[in-house]
């Protein structure tokens, strides 16, 4: 958690006029620690061979999500996706766009 959000969190907790710490924590919305999506970089590769499998031959995409936290600090979150994993990822964002349009 970035230093900035600790201060915000403390203030928010103090402001909540309910029971003990546990009750207060439950009231904090899930997205309190949400970071802002800034950009995505990607790279497509094919894993050809490995020590355990001479014929891997699977394409995969490596993405780097550029995100900004509440203090403006930028970090890169990297991960890999196989083709089916990517297709699912893509589909979710299409659904998201559809919902955002209707709201």
């Amino acid at each position, binding site marked *: 958690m970035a230093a900035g959000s600790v201060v915000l969190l403390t203030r928010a907790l103090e402001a909540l006029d309910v029971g003990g710490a546990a009750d207060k924590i439950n009231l904090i919305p899930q997205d309190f620690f949400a970071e802002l999506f800034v950009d995505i970089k990607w790279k497509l590769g094919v894993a050809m061979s490995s020590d*355990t499998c001479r014929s891997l031959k699977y394409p995969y995409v490596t993405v780097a999500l550029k995100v900004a936290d509440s203090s403006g600090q930028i970090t890169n*979150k990297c*991960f890999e996706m196989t083709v089916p*994993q990517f297709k699912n990822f893509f589909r979710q964002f299409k659904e998201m766009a559809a919902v955002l*349009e209707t709201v």
Partner: protein
Amino acid sequence: MAAAEQQPPAVDGGKVDITEELLRGQLYPEAAPEEFRALRAKMGGLLQSIASADMDLNQLEAFLTAQTKKQGGITSDQAAVIAKFWKNHRVKIHESLVNQSCWDNVLKNMNWRVDLKSQSRHVDQINTPVAIVEMELGKYGQESEFLCLEFDEAKVSQMLKKLTEIEESMTALTQTT
């Protein structure tokens, strides 16, 4: 030698160690340990070759036929059993090998919701819809990091544009291989 069509040993949620002794006791209790060890090594070796090459049916047939013809090879019954096993499990085995060779973070899970965010600092209360996405990132078999990201409509569009680029590249790639 008949295929082991008997009930598999009761494996308690994967916690029981599949030892050679367990296999022998379940499959060939009358066989001597050295005899079973040799059989297991031979079959294991063949499957490893087949899995490593991710053989298609033609390659498999050619490979197994060659094995039946050589000294100390396999019988045609054994070849038939191996062929049946590979046909049934090829996809899952290959997927497992693929996952084993991925040592970077993967997206293990993803959830999202759309919220209406009210900008209360402005005079006009503008309700902007935002998508809150939770991504579970981590390496296979290791602890995950949960990433919570906020996207407005413009950012989702930006993401879709990039994802379309990826899809186009993937299509181009699979068409040429």
